[in-house]
């Protein structure tokens, strides 16, 4: 009985978000008759796929009470490395695997400084943000990498069962993240560390290894997003992904994951990414100038958190 009650409360917490999304959709479909067309809906999903993939990794990091500011730069680095490998003649599968491995490795690099040297995640990943960007620019001499094999076109523009490939990749990664967080011992350890690191340590949980994992996972997410973006642009830009970390963090917090760790989930992150994506899309349809779009987006993030806060305080 009480089990039902708690689930209900949990759902209520998420429900607010979904309602906000539904309200947005209703308003936009009233304002623009182009909004609720199936092509536009797919368009929105495809537009948010890159952010949602990065934000999935970010969710894992933030639940563990960390933050990863390096994802945008890491996306650029892994994008140009993967593309360069493919252009150099390696089989595309190997090139992509190499890029994903590099992303994971760079996440481990962040994680070592954070978990083992005890430096604050904010600082370490801020350093990562400039280091990875610098590496991406150095490797390419600042020039985009193009002339990619057709596999990248398939990633960016192919479709399967009527849905574009980027959406499938996004859904797959969201599902993977959800399974890790909810159904594995590792996921449990991440929530425990985010909620109370000391208690986790005293319970014999391998705290450092687990924190290391969260950053490695975020690195993997960034490199996966890099593959999607490279496919969309059919080239890899060393200047890609600037400020992507902020969009990802915004999706996570709008999605109800606490920046103080220990609470949240990837379903909320998807809804958060959708809210941001729908707003962007809606404003484009309504021809809102892009300068104003940024102001509105920031305002929506504040409003979402304010509502969340009010709901939370009424609950306790």
């Amino acid at each position, binding site marked *: 009985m*009480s089990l039902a009650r*708690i689930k209900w409360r949990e759902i209520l917490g998420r429900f607010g978000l979904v309602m906000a999304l539904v309200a947005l959709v209703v308003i936009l479909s009233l304002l623009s008759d182009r909004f609720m067309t199936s092509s536009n809906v797919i368009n929105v999903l495809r537009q948010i796929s890159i952010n949602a993939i990065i934000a999935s990794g970010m969710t894992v990091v933030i639940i563990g009470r960390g933050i990863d500011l390096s994802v945008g730069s890491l996306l650029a680095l892994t994008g140009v490395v993967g593309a360069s490998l493919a252009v150099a003649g390696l089989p595309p599968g190997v090139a992509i695997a190499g890029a994903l491995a590099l992303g994971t490795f760079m996440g481990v690099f962040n994680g070592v400084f954070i978990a083992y040297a005890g430096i604050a995640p904010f600082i370490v990943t801020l350093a990562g943000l400039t280091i990875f960007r610098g590496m991406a620019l150095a490797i390419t001499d600042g020039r985009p990498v193009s002339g990619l094999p057709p596999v990248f076109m398939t990633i960016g523009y192919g479709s399967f069962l009527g849905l574009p490939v980027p959406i499938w990749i996004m859904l797959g990664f969201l599902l993977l993240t959800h399974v890790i967080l909810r159904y*594995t011992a590792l996921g449990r350890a991440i929530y*425990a560390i985010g909620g109370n690191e000391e*208690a986790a340590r005293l319970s014999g949980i391998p705290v450092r290894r687990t924190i290391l994992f969260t950053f490695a996972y975020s690195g993997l997410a960034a490199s996966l997003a890099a593959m999607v973006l490279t496919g969309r642009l059919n080239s890899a830009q060393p200047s890609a992904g600037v400020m992507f970390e902020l969009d990802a963090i915004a999706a996570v917090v709008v999605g109800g994951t606490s920046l103080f760790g220990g609470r949240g989930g990837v379903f909320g992150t998807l809804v958060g990414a959708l809210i941001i994506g729908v707003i962007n899309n809606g404003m484009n349809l309504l021809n809102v100038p892009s300068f104003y779009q940024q102001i509105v987006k920031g305002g929506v993030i504040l409003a979402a958190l304010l509502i969340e806060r009010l709901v939370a305080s009424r609950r306790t």
Partner: protein
Amino acid sequence: MALLTMTGMHKRFGNVIALDDVDFTLEAGEVHALVGENGAGKSTLMKVLAGVQPPDAGTMTLAEREVRFASVTEAQANGVVMVYQELALVPSLSVTENLLLGRLPPLVRYGDLRARARDLLAQVDLAIDPNAEVGRLGIGERQLIEIARALSREGRVLVLDEPTAALSATETDHLFEIIGKVKAQGVSVVYISHRLEEVFRIADRVTVLRDGKRVGTRSLAETSAEEIVRLMVGKAVRRYERPQRHEAEELGRFEVGGGGDLQTTTIALRAGEIVGLAGVIGSGRERVLPTAFGLHGTARWRERPLRSPRDAIREGIVLVPSDRKTQGLVLELTVQENVSLATLERLQRLGFMRSGLERQQTRRWIERLSLRPPEPHKPVFELSGGNQQKVVIAKALATEPKVLLLDEPTRGVDVGARAELYDVIDDLSSRGLGLLLSSSDTEELLGLSDRILVFRGGRIATTLTPPFAYEEVVAHVTGAHQVA
């Protein structure tokens, strides 16, 4: 006419009636103890008084004037001050700045301020440097600073909520001296405590609350501890007595040391034995268990080094830490998630949680420790202190340990839940576990231990064997017999 009268106070939180028609009076220059089990309404009553929460109904008169405090600031302006433990001080500022916070002149002349601060510190007999950073001071000193600050603002009513919980015996004595001094100046003190011996030591009257109702107010000269406990509990209390047990095989020996106050010490432990550790804060006693769990210093168990909690758990040693909120629990996780925390490795297959096994384990411990409510999916922050402690113990026991380290297992736990925890501890020893029990509660040590090791100056000063005498233990702990 009393200085303060609260009449017909009502307060309700959702379905819970926290205060039900409570009357309370406070005379000028009186120390009035407020006692009751957890959840009886003590803190709520005082929050209403101090302007933290408005009452739903009821009137308050202070010095023959009807008052209603909408905020803490308003209460303070009327001389009603609640002394929190360390919360109200800014750790990074100096003692002087903290004492005069909010009243600093626009142009700060430090010489004058320091002189003023020194006067205030003298009022509470605190000989510390006014320039010292508050964050570096002990809890006892911080409390006295708060009292000094309250007095400097012409406080007439001081509310102390469990002020001695983290104090050593000496600090407690000092605090009580100051309370006596303050009282002589005509200030009234409301003293919330779980410790009856303290209540008898310093209070003039005591009001007992139970389930949000006032069940009695007594003058301490005309009552007994038995009567007060009866009022608190509402039924007869079971006296705890530990039967003599047989000697059993030795499980192993701990060798702990190398951490701050603690010199290298060896403790042998038998199966089924409960070894009590006594000693004031700073005696080294409070470092023994964290060290034995591999948290700091150096520890060996059966000649094998314990370098981390993981090592210890692997050796069958598990700690129930002294502070369940910061060390024992992940508050926002559920009962089940907390119980599983130390056994994640066993509850998984190929990384995936085995949910059936996990449910089964949780259900077993909920039953065995009679957790209330018996709901595995409730976040632990919603449980009472005693039940939270049961969750910490369940988590520890789920590892199927051979040795259980209990660090202040009943701190902040009410009388009823305490007796239940004692039953659990007793049951564990009869199942052959070896237990080390570190406690600042002498009665608890007396009731549970087969042997008491008294720590003083970083080492075992005395080993006491049954039958124990209360006075004897206290004398050894405080070192009083050495003075004589």
